[in-house]
Each structure stands twice: as structure tokens, then as C-alpha cells.
């Protein structure tokens, strides 16, 4: 009981300490009271310690399976692996909210104790805004979903973690999503602080660039790992279903990606100030909106947590933050005038602007598709779901145009580019891309959207690689270094630019995966008797029969399938299975996968007849799925290259060179 009491007491106190951080920071700024601000700073540390104690206590209760606590009894059970006992911390509503508060406390601690040139005045306001948001979470956890609530009795066993959540993805996907979602609070708070202080120059963007990139990276990883998890666990052969909650993660990603691009224009030219503030506010609001959707049970989704009052509370908070940010932006709108104007149609600035229009167009389409069931419910009384064809029709063409922009962007100069130079740079990649697509077409792959994607992807790859090539050549001419050394040093000295190009290449690798699975996946649903076989692509599957085995807390019914090549060579045995749980949870399908870099053979056991041994199989042959996951890793590498700090002395040296040139 002691551990639980410590956790509950720490959590209870945090409900008073966080508002104190908000009030002390706010009045410290207003009255310019140093002691009050110092006390607020101490409260930030105290808040972190209290939430860390509460989190540690909850983890201890979960690990020791203390079923006297409702949360432990609901999300763990005897026999649950240690990894999933810990993961149960964020597996349920109350625990995940505490996990949010913990991440926010860590972020606030880091923000409050790091200094950046020119942002000192912003710190107390940023702290106040972050503390205000945290107050909402602290109150919700204490008053609505307390993970330290106890049962009047102690059950012998718990319900156990949902079978679908018992996957290594549970340790990666939610954590990444939370880190990403919550991270956007920081640039939002800085944007609001900058407006309040009338400091609408690019300082807040420079200070928050790394925070934005880190949050964006976490959110991206969360989405990619989520897709991977869905592919391996849900057994429907796909990785993205346009589920409302998947969309809830995609929407802030779209807004944040637009923001990352438009922020560069403000940093370089002092333009799009209002737009950037609006975009980061939108990103933050969409993370809250996504949380409201996940927790509200307003829309059906496999990801939903509950149907309690949480959705209403979160939606009210979204409304409150929307009003707050709108009032601040309108109040300071006169300070958001651009320092310069667009000078030419053919320029990097115009490219970024078009990029933003497309991202926001895609965002609007996804938003409309996501909230449409709520709108129809409000008007007609029944929810009308929007399915994949809507998104495929609207969002995918926008995606193809965005990819084409990735090809044009790198070859266009800032301010103005000549059409002649642009033509010279773009014509060779366009011809190469066209030849590649024609070859693919004549090989018999003729899905129009996939072909358009292959064209755009080839175009981008060629353009980016030639950009690397031209850069290396220019450097080799000036320094007489070898090509490899030039490449490494060129990337090292322009990490932001070349990190961005690597991310673009990663996106292209993923797009090739999306286009291939979207256009050329094959599927067979077949009922087989033992000894019968089925052919798909270059594989032949021979069904041997069913097997039953008893595992910890479940009975596993598996089918044995031997995989052969078309030439008759054995590749091994696959065992798609259905798992039946002792605690009465719905059975779950455990698909079998034979994966190569080029194809995934994916088998799902859909039904069985234990008397005859017949089994119903769903067999998928998905081409180039591995490209999606490989692209994800390259994406992480590219973002790290962009994130890696450049040496200060290099900046100084650069200034000196330019000064000397003057």
C-alpha cells in the first residue's frame, strides 16, 4: 500500500504545484518580481519530481501486479511479460495521461533550464503557457482518471493487457507519438510568448527549430511504427486504413511539415510571420484534437481508449486553447507584417508557398473525412463513415504533386531563378524518369497512380542525386579533396540542407513502397484441406494441417504451411495462427510472414474446421513493403543530420569569409 500512497500523494500535490508554476510565472512577469520567478523555477523542478515519483510508483504497482489498484487489475494479469507490465503504464487511459504529464514535466524542465541568445525574456511566459496546459492534465488525472484508484477488494487476477497491445510495437509506437504530440507544445508556447512580447522576428523560430524537428521526428516515427505494428498485428494485410485515429496523428504531422518548410522563409526573408504562428498553433491544436478523438470514443476506432467524459473535456480544452491562440494572434496581428515581398514566381519562396498550400489542402481533406461522421451524426442522427476511396481520390494526387515539388525545390534559387537554368536542371531528370516509367509500363505494371508515383519518385531521386553531385564537384574544384571527403564535409557544413535532402530521399523510398503495395498487391482467399496447395505470384503454399498448443494464458491454434518457389524449392514453414485467451478476451489472429526485400508473403488464418482439418486462409503478396520500413530508417538518419548542431566557430568563420569578400 505504501508505494501506491506515495504515488497518489505525489500526484495529488502536483495538481497544486502546476497551477502555482503558471500563476507565479505570470505574476512574476507582470510585476517583474525576481523572487516570484525564482519560486516558479523551483516549482518546475518540484513538479517534475512529484510526477516522476507518481510515475515510478505506478510502474512499481504494475510490475508487482498489485491488483488492489483498479488500473493494475484492468491492464495486467499474472503471466503477462515484464515488458508489457511496464508498457501497461501507457496502455490505459489514466496511465497514459500520467505518462503525458511526465513527458510534459520533462520538457518543461529542459525548456526552463536551457538558455538561448535572445529568448531569456520569453522563458517565464513559455513556462506559464506550458504550465497552463499541464494544469489541465493534472486536474483530469486527479479528478477524472486517477491511476491510483483502488478496488474495495483485491482480485486474484487482472484482466490483462489487450492482446493486440502485446506486441513489441507497444513499447515504441505510443511513446513516440506522445513525445511528438507533446513536443509541439514548446514551439507553440514560444510563438505565443513572442507575440505577447511583440518579438515577432525569427528568434522564436531559431530557438524552437530543434524542438520542432525532434517533435516532428517522434511523430513521424510514431506514425511509421504504428503502420508497421498494424501490418504485423492486425492481420488484414495492410498498414494504413485511414482510421480516424490514424488520421488524428497524420493531421498534426501535415501541419507541422508545412510549418517546417514555411519557417525557413521567415528565417531567411522575414516573410510569412502570421502564417507561421497560425501553422504552429494549428499543429498544437490538432495534437489536442487527436487526443480528444482517441479518448472520447466519439468515433469508432481500434485505437480508442474509452467512452467516458474525457472526449468532452478534451474538446472543451481544444476550444479554450483555440480561443486563446486566436485572441493573441489577432491582438498582435499588426506586428506580423512581412519584412519583404515575394519577388519572382520562379523562386524557392514560391515553391515553399505552394508546398504549404498543398499540405494544408491535404490536411483539410483528411480533417473533413475524419470529422464527417460527427457532422452527419449531428445533422441526421447517424454516423456516416468516410472510407479509403475518398482519401485515395483526394489526398493521393496531392501527394504526387508534393513529390514533384520535391524535385523542383532543390534546383530553384532563393529570390529568383531563371527559367532557362530551371529547364536545364529539370530536363535530364524528367527524361530519365520518363524512360524508367516507360520501362515499368512495358513490363506490364500499368496502374495509373502507381506509374505517376514512380515518375515523380524517379524525378526526385535524380534531381537530389545530381544536387549532391554538383555540390561535391563544386567543392572538389575549390578544395582538391577526394569525392568521398568532399561529400562528407559538404554534408557536415550544410547539415540542414543535406539532412533535408536525405529526408526527401527517404520519403521517396517510402513512396515507392506505397505505390507498389497500393497498385500491385495480390490477394487470395481460399479454403484448403490438409495436403492441398495454393499458388500466388512466384510462391506455392502447401497446407499440412492444424496444430494446437498451450501457452501462458492462451491456447494457440496454428496451421502449418510449407512455402515453395515456383521451381519447387522449399523456403521453409509458415504458421499462421489464432490465439484464444484464458481470460475471455476476443481471439486474435497471428499472421505469418515470409519477407524478402522485394515481396512479402503474408498469410492469415481466417477460420478452421477442427473435425476435417480444413482451414480458410487469406494470402497476400505485397511487393516492396520493405521499402516503407527502410525509408523510415533513412528518414531518421536525415532528420538527425539536420538536427546535429553546427559548430559555432564555423559560423564565425563563415561570417569572416563573407566580411573579407565584402
Amino acid at each position, binding site marked *: 500500500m505504501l508505494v501506491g500512497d506515495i504515488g497518489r500523494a505525489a500526484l495529488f500535490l502536483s495538481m497544486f504545484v502546476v497551477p*502555482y508554476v503558471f500563476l507565479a510565472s505570470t505574476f512574476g512577469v507582470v510585476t517583474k518580481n525576481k523572487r516570484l520567478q525564482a519560486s516558479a523555477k523551483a516549482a518546475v523542478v*518540484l513538479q517534475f519530481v512529484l510526477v516522476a515519483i507518481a510515475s515510478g510508483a505506478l510502474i512499481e504497482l504494475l510490475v508487482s501486479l498489485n491488483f488492489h489498484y483498479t488500473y493494475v487489475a484492468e491492464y495486467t494479469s499474472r503471466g503477462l511479460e515484464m515488458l508489457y507490465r511496464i508498457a501497461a503504464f501507457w496502455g490505459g487511459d489514466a496511465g497514459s495521461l500520467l505518462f503525458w504529464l511526465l513527458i510534459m514535466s520533462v520538457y518543461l524542465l529542459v525548456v526552463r533550464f536551457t538558455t538561448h541568445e535572445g529568448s531569456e525574456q520569453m522563458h517565464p511566459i513559455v513556462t506559464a503557457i506550458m504550465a497552463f496546459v499541464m494544469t489541465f492534465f493534472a486536474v483530469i488525472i486527479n479528478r477524472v482518471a486517477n491511476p491510483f484508484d483502488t478496488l474495495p477488494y483485491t482480485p486474484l487476477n487482472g484482466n490483462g493487457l489487450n492482446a493486440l497491445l502485446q506486441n513489441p510495437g507497444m513499447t515504441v509506437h505510443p511513446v513516440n507519438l506522445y513525445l511528438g504530440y507533446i513536443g509541439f507544445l514548446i514551439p507553440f508556447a514560444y510563438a505565443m510568448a513572442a507575440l505577447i512580447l511583440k518579438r515577432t522576428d525569427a528568434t522564436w523560430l531559431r530557438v524552437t527549430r530543434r524542438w520542432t524537428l525532434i517533435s516532428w521526428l517522434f511523430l513521424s516515427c510514431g506514425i511509421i511504427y504504428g503502420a508497421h505494428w498494424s501490418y504485423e498485428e492486425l492481420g488484414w494485410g495492410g498498414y494504413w486504413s485511414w482510421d480516424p485515429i490514424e488520421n488524428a496523428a497524420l493531421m498534426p504531422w501535415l501541419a507541422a511539415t508545412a510549418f517546417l518548410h514555411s519557417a525557413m522563409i521567415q528565417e531567411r526573408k522575414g516573410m510569412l510571420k502570421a502564417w507561421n504562428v497560425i501553422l504552429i498553433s494549428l499543429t498544437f491544436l490538432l495534437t489536442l484534437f487527436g487526443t480528444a478523438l482517441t479518448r472520447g470514443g466519439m468515433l469508432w476506432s481500434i485505437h480508442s481508449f474509452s467512452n467516458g467524459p474525457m472526449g468532452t473535456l478534451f474538446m472543451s480544452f481544444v476550444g479554450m486553447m483555440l480561443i486563446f491562440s486566436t485572441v493573441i494572434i489577432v491582438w498582435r496581428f499588426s506586428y506580423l507584417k512581412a519584412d519583404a515581398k515575394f519577388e519572382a514566381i520562379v523562386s524557392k519562396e514560391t515553391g515553399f508557398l505552394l508546398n504549404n498550400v498543398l499540405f494544408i489542402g491535404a490536411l483539410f481533406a483528411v480533417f473533413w473525412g475524419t470529422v464527417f461522421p460527427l457532422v452527419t451524426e449531428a445533422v441526421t442522427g447517424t454516423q456516416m463513415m468516410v472510407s479509403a476511396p475518398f482519401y485515395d481520390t483526394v489526398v493521393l494526387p496531392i501527394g504526387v504533386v508534393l513529390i514533384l515539388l520535391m524535385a523542383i525545390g532543390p*534546383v530553384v534559387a*532563393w529570390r529568383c531563378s*531563371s527559367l532557362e*537554368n530551371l529547364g536545364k536542371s529539370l530536363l535530364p531528370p524528367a527524361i530519365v524518369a520518363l524512360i524508367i516509367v516507360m520501362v515499368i509500363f512495358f513490363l506490364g505494371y500499368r496502374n495509373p497512380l502507381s506509374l505517376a508515383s514512380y515518375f515523380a519518385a524517379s524525378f526526385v531521386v535524380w534531381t537530389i542525386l545530381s544536387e549532391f553531385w554538383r555540390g561535391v564537384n563544386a567543392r572538389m574544384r575549390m578544395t582538391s579533396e577526394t569525392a568521398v571527403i568532399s561529400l562528407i564535409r559538404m554534408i557536415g557544413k550544410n547539415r540542414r540542407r543535406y539532412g533535408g535532402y536525405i529526408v526527401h530521399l527517404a520519403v521517396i523510398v517510402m513512396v515507392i513502397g506505397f505505390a507498389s503495395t497500393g497498385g500491385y498487391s495480390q490477394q487470395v482467399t481460399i479454403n484448403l484441406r490438409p495436403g492441398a496447395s495454393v499458388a500466388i505470384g512466384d510462391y506455392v503454399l502447401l497446407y499440412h494441417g492444424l496444430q494446437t498448443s498451450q501457452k501462458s494464458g492462451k491456447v494457440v491454434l496454428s496451421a502449418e504451411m510449407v512455402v515453395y518457389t515456383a521451381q519447387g524449392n522449399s523456403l521453409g514453414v509458415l504458421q499462421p495462427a489464432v490465439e484464444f485467451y484464458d481470460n475471455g478476451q476476443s481471439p486474435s489472429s497471428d499472421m505469418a510472414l515470409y519477407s524478402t526485400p522485394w515481396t512479402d508473403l503474408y498469410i492469415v488464418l481466417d477460420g478452421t474446421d477442427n473435425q476435417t482439418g480444413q482451414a480458410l486462409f487469406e494470402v497476400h503478396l505485397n511487393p516492396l513493403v520493405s521499402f516503407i520500413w527502410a525509408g523510415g530508417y533513412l528518414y531518421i538518419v536525415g532528420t538527425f543530420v539536420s538536427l546535429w548542431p553546427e559548430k559555432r566557430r564555423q559560423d564565425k568563420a563563415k561570417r569572416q569569409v*563573407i566580411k573579407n569578400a565584402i
Partner: protein
Amino acid sequence: MQYNVTLLIFAVISLAILAWPFMFSRHNRISPYSVSDEVITVLGQKDMTYAQLADLEYDRQMGKVSEQSYRAVRGELLSTLSQVDKAEQTVRDHIAQQVEQELQCLRANEVTR
């Protein structure tokens, strides 16, 4: 009972931490000599102009701008840079003047005492 005792201990420690700056911090007013907004704005403009110059050089080396555009834009950026330099100097002079005035006031107060 156990919970109430734990809560009480935590509450007392928390209050002590929060009250610490009020009891032991000597100076209450925030120093007015933080980096001025004007300096930050000017340095921001300077950074922006340097970044534009660096981009222009890069675009030229990569053959993305014509020689004519390069010269025109470079001239414009250098002129902006010299204006920013002048503005920076003015701001710095102004700050130095303010500091000098404050010092004189402080010295005068010392003498009066």
C-alpha cells in the same frame, strides 16, 4: 492514515522548496540590463542577411542563378548589410549612452550620501 502522513510530508517539503527564494534571495527586482530588443532585432537582421548571402553564393556555385541576377542580388544584400551595421552601431551607442547616464546617476547618489 498512511496516505495522509505521506501527503503531509510531501506538502511540507514542497512548501519549503517554493518558499525558499522568498526567504533567501537578496535581490527582488529583475535587472533592467537584459539584452535589449533593439539589439536582438538588429542581430537577427544581420544573421538573416548573412544567411541570404551564403545561400546566394551556394546557388551561384550550383549554377542556379544567372551571373546578372547574382550581381544584382549581392549588391542589394551588401547594401542591406551596411545599413544593418550602421543600425547596430547606433543601437550600441545608444545603449552605451544609457549605461553612462545610469552610472553618472549612481555616482551622484554616492556623493550625496
